[in-house]
């Protein structure tokens, strides 16, 4: 088994939330390079479809692992098993998440808590384990799908935004810690992507296809970037969004 360093594509890949549309599109690109996968998701039939597709497209091997990532107590065993199956790990792609219903989350704390648990707490548990693993091995990449929504709270989806904002800060810290061990932590901030998660929104010109977003992610992984907006123009949109003074921002409908 070859080790991966900067400039080569990762060979041993663990995908958490492998059936998310953005993850799947990214994994297809890695499959074409002959990667070896452990795929973790909740739904067996969906996992099987993704696994078959990756194998057909050129994956060396792909194992499906059915697991609900909200169950943090099972993380350590699952991650140990996955890395053992792969004989090591070059890349972990953390891609699970839910949009949640903002209006319901405003009415009911349990709904808000579920969003935070899936998008933030379970990620803290998984990334915590992975950071220790990669730090000890002194190489590897943790790529995490966050969101532009984490850059600033907006009334239309601030619970989701807070879960991703918390995640971004957590990742900044992990990066600051493991960089000196040669480990790359990539925060991925997609804008609107045409996926089942956004099926409730009307698709305007800002929407990108998962394949387009995936190419940006694969490039960022290869170049060992820290933070990447995909597609790239969101960097400028969010720069402006962040610069609006709060007294103005709070009056806006966003």
């Amino acid at each position, binding site marked *: 088994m070859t080790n991966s360093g900067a400039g080569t594509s990762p060979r041993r890949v663990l995908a958490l939330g492998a059936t998310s549309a953005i993850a799947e599109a990214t994994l297809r690109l890695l499959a074409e390079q002959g990667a070896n996968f452990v795929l973790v998701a909740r739904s067996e*039939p*969906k996992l099987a*479809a993704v696994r*078959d597709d990756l194998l*057909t497209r050129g994956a060396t091997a792909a194992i499906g692992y059915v697991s609900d990532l909200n169950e943090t107590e099972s993380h350590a065993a699952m991650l140990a098993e996955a890395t053992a199956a792969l004989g090591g790990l070059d890349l972990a792609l953390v891609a699970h998440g839910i949009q949640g219903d903002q209006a319901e989350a405003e009415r009911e704390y349990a709904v808000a808590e579920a969003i935070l648990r899936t998008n933030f707490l379970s990620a803290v548990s998984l990334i915590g384990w992975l950071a220790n693993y990669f730090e000890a091995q002194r190489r590897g990449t943790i790529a995490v799908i966050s969101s532009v929504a984490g850059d600033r709270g907006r009334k*239309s989806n601030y619970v989701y935004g807070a879960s991703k904002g918390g995640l971004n800060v957590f990742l900044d810290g992990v990066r600051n810690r493991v960089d000196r061990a040669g480990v790359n932590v990539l925060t991925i901030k997609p804008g609107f992507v045409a996926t089942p998660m956004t099926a409730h929104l*009307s698709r305007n010109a800002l929407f990108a296809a998962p394949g387009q977003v995936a190419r940006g992610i694969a490039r960022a992984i290869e170049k060992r970037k820290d933070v990447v907006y995909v597609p790239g123009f969101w960097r400028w949109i969010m720069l402006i969004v962040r610069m609006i003074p709060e007294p103005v921002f709070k009056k806006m409908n966003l």
Partner: protein
Amino acid sequence: MGKAKPRPGFESWGRYPKLQADVVPLHWTTDFPLAKAPAARQLPVGLGRSYGDVCLLENGTLLATPEMDRLLHFNEATGVLRCEAGASLKEILDFAMPRGFFLPVTPGTKYVTVGGAIANDIHGKNHHVAGTFGRHVLRFELARSDGSRVVCSPVENPEWFAATIGGMGLTGLMTWAEIRLRPIVSRLIDYRGVKFHGLAEFLDLSRTAASEYTVSWIDCLSTGKNFARGIFMQGDHAEIPGPLRRSREPKLTFPFDLPQLALNRYSVATFNAFYYHRQRGNEKTGPVDYEPFFYPLDAVLKWNRMYGKAGLLQFQCVLPREQDEHGVVEVLKAITASGLASFLAVIKVFGDVPSPGMMSFPAPGITLALDFPIRREASFDLLERLARITLEHGGRMYPAKDARMTPEQFQAFYPQWQEFARYVDPGFDSAFWQRVTGRRPLDD
């Protein structure tokens, strides 16, 4: 940000008629039947490259399949590919070309889904030797609105296999299909283009050409000594091993809707003269890439905008061989007389390889396909005249390219339609099916 509803509309390639519908993307084969059963009828749709209304359903629920695009299995020894029904021919080519395989049959665009290719039992430039796309389908799964699923092949549920190939998406939702790809050793096509003057020369060339692929562009505006002039184009996959790389993504998108009058008899006559004389000399041979050979129009995305917002009408018929040129001459004369512009006019001799679908369009004979800008009465009158000529000469028209045929015409072209109707999913319908069964009037 995050404004909910209304869902985007869905247009066919001809952008006529314009009918509102709810579009629900299916991402997984298990997404159907929908968790929340729709009150309205449903219809699976792919990339919307059929021209008329076979992919439309007013106030219905369109099940958009292009996100169901997984490649589930490929056998390099046999060339058999199993994929989800929303996978496009473009995606299959991107996958197959570097592995030395090509589509068994391809239409003039690669932006169609496998499900759409089967549902319309499409044909290509190799019809005379390979038959329709359906001939190369081994099996597929059909999901019905009652939640049942059946695997169909020539030996498993053969009646459902026959009804679904060319069944216009009405028999249920196809979830996956197995097709057999053909091996190749190069992207390149050995090409030969020969000018012809009149139908007799075209038919001579068609009879004697031994190529796997043949098609002709025909000038539908010129009269007199230039009547029915054209270029006979033939090609074969190169036999000398050559490049097998994946195609580059197209960079051009037609940026806006042209004003409706941009395409008129003068601009089209100019185009036709240019196109005819671009090939200097009577004959041109040499290797060409498969992309411009099969998909010249795919280089510019959304080229239908050239016809303006009103859209375009297509006409494609096949006229049986026995009566040969007479019907074709009548069709061509009706078109030249109307002066309605059509520069994408194609003529080809179909072979006698039988189509596997109950409702498949191709049949032995001469097929002619052209498009017109929509000029209300004039275009509708012309199409009505062409349908009558087709009927008189024992031919038939292609549902995937039609927006205007009457129930009487359809039922004469496809007398087996009542037999087919027994296989239509009770939860499914289409604007086309409503029209040709007399449940939706033509708007005039």
